[in-house]
């Protein structure tokens, strides 16, 4: 029983991997150029792995703009109305208490808390959305090369790519100037 629960949690947290081909670059600019060529050659599911956000890489790989701002907007509005409603309901409906002759629903005095709940909901849900989109948190993500979080850049073509052929991909990477091309799991 307990073992099966631990197994389930483990599987939930373990980073899923796919087989594929990886090629390395020592320069960020070369990697961007190679990624652009790869996209132009018709690759769809490939990705670049970089130690920092490289300028121009999103366009090169063809990643669409993240939808997170919509989450922030909607959740910010939710926080705003939730905060205001909480204050209205507690101060004017559930147990109205007269304070300093102010109206039961004293809107100007309710603005600061409404503002804070807007920010709180917006910020926390944006981060939650980032976690969801990036499938975090996980444990033991596959490491193709420890330098990929330090000084190396890589292009990765997973086996889910339409018409995937390992040898063809390797040859194409060679053409793009990648080094240490190898098959791996990521």
């Amino acid at each position, binding site marked *: 029983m307990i073992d099966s629960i631990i197994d389930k949690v483990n599987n939930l*947290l373990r*980073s899923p991997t796919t087989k594929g081909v990886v090629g390395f670059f020592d320069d960020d600019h070369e990697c961007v150029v190679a990624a652009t060529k790869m996209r132009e050659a018709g690759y769809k599911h490939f*990705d*670049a*792995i*970089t*130690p*920092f*956000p*490289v*300028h121009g*890489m*999103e366009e090169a*790989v063809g*990643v669409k*703009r*993240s939808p*997170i*701002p919509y989450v*922030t907007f909607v959740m910010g509005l939710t926080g705003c109305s939730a905060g205001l409603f*909480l*204050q209205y309901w*507690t*101060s004017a409906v*559930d*147990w109205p208490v007269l*304070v300093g002759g*102010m109206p039961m629903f004293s809107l100007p*005095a*309710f603005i*600061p808390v409404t*503002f*804070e*709940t807007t920010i*709180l909901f*917006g*910020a*926390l849900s*944006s*981060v939650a*959305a*980032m976690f969801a*989109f*990036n*499938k*975090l*948190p*996980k*444990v*033991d*993500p596959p*490491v193709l090369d*420890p*330098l*990929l*979080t*330090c*000084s190396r850049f890589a292009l*990765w073509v997973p086996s889910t790519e339409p018409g995937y052929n390992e040898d063809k991909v390797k040859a194409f990477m060679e053409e793009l100037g990648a080094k240490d091309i190898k098959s791996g799991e*990521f």
Partner: protein
Amino acid sequence: MIERRPLVLGDKTYKDITDDICAPVEVLPSKGWILLFTGAVSLFAFYLTHMGIILGTGMGLMGTNHPVGWGTDIVTFVFWIGIGHAGTLISAILFLFRQKWRTSVARTAEAMTVFAVFTAGLFPLIHTGRPWLDFWLLPYPNQRGPLWVNFRSPLLWDVFAVSTYTTVSIVFWYVGLIPDFATLRDRAKNKIRKLVYGVLSLGWRGTTRNWSHYEIVYMLLAGLATPLVLSVHTIVSFDFAVSGLPGWHTTIFPPYFVAGAIFSGFGMVITLMVLVRAAYPAFKDYITIDHMEVMNKIIMTTGMMVGYAYASEFFIAWYSGVEVEQYAFINRATGPYWWSYWIMVTCNVVIPQLFWFKFFRRNITAMFIISIFVNIGMWFERFVITVTSLHRDFLPSNWGMYEWSWFDTAILCGSFGMFFTLFLGYLRVFPAISIAEVKPVLYVGKKKGEH
């Protein structure tokens, strides 16, 4: 055309940056660190002891009494929360303004924010007098009616402002740390390190899709933290300004408090950065004299804004024609607490004027001393606002003095023990400069290929 100055000195590669920044985390602590940490922990223990005595015996041990009902607790709370503001200014506001120099100081400044807010947050909780009932501050369904909190009170606004600020600061800081934890994970040579940093990095992979969401969320958090930080000290100033007390009841308080907060926070950033540079000489290539100079300019600017607010308060008191208001300000400068007022003016307005001279802006010893004065001056500013306004209000029969006690001294000094324990601990286990943020600015002010 003015040439851009390099943000990172020396001929460095991406690998060098990783090595330099990770090195302090991956070696045994130096003797200097152990010495400082022992001192900080001892002061922290001293703090906890006195806090325990105050909790056990009662608030009467401290100087707060009629007519000065707000004392060291509130003064020191505003002091620490103000310090936090510079960290958010550097990490969020300067990010939105695309100020690339912020990258190498943002991480540590933000750590300072988080720890300063932790330190600050304890004070109002103790000030309530019955800290074991502090959960009454939250609007939760209860069996007393339910009797809800009073949402028309600025003190309650403060509960929401400070708790939101704490949460968002921690989250913003942690999001920034995720890729750097992944770097430390991949460098780890022993199993426990790998496990700990592996867990902390939450399974970060560094793909373009990862970075795309990450950068958007970082920008959104900066955009949300910017109005948040301005709102926090505005609401702290409402604690005073919304009351009817002469000396507190002024409309200038929100901008005046925000400027003061940024001023004091940059004072503390300079103090800490000088220490970090001394402790880790390799960091001098990242936190350069140019960085320090820019921050000193901000100190001078905000110092003058604070000075303007001091003058404006006097003008409005005279212009209002309200006798008690006029007396409150004359009493500040010439009454029994005249010394605190003039310490404040000297430290906050006069001394930072030295930064008009390039020598002082770029001399480490000079800026360190000035930053200490700024810290002292800004504590006294809150003392002046709180105590001098309360001790003589409308009725002379209601006048009195603040009976400063040993316990006030103990918890004021002790709070530095808490702050430095957290800060020194942070320097040992977290990368103190953002690795992933410094790399993209490596070639600013340099030509690529010349390295």
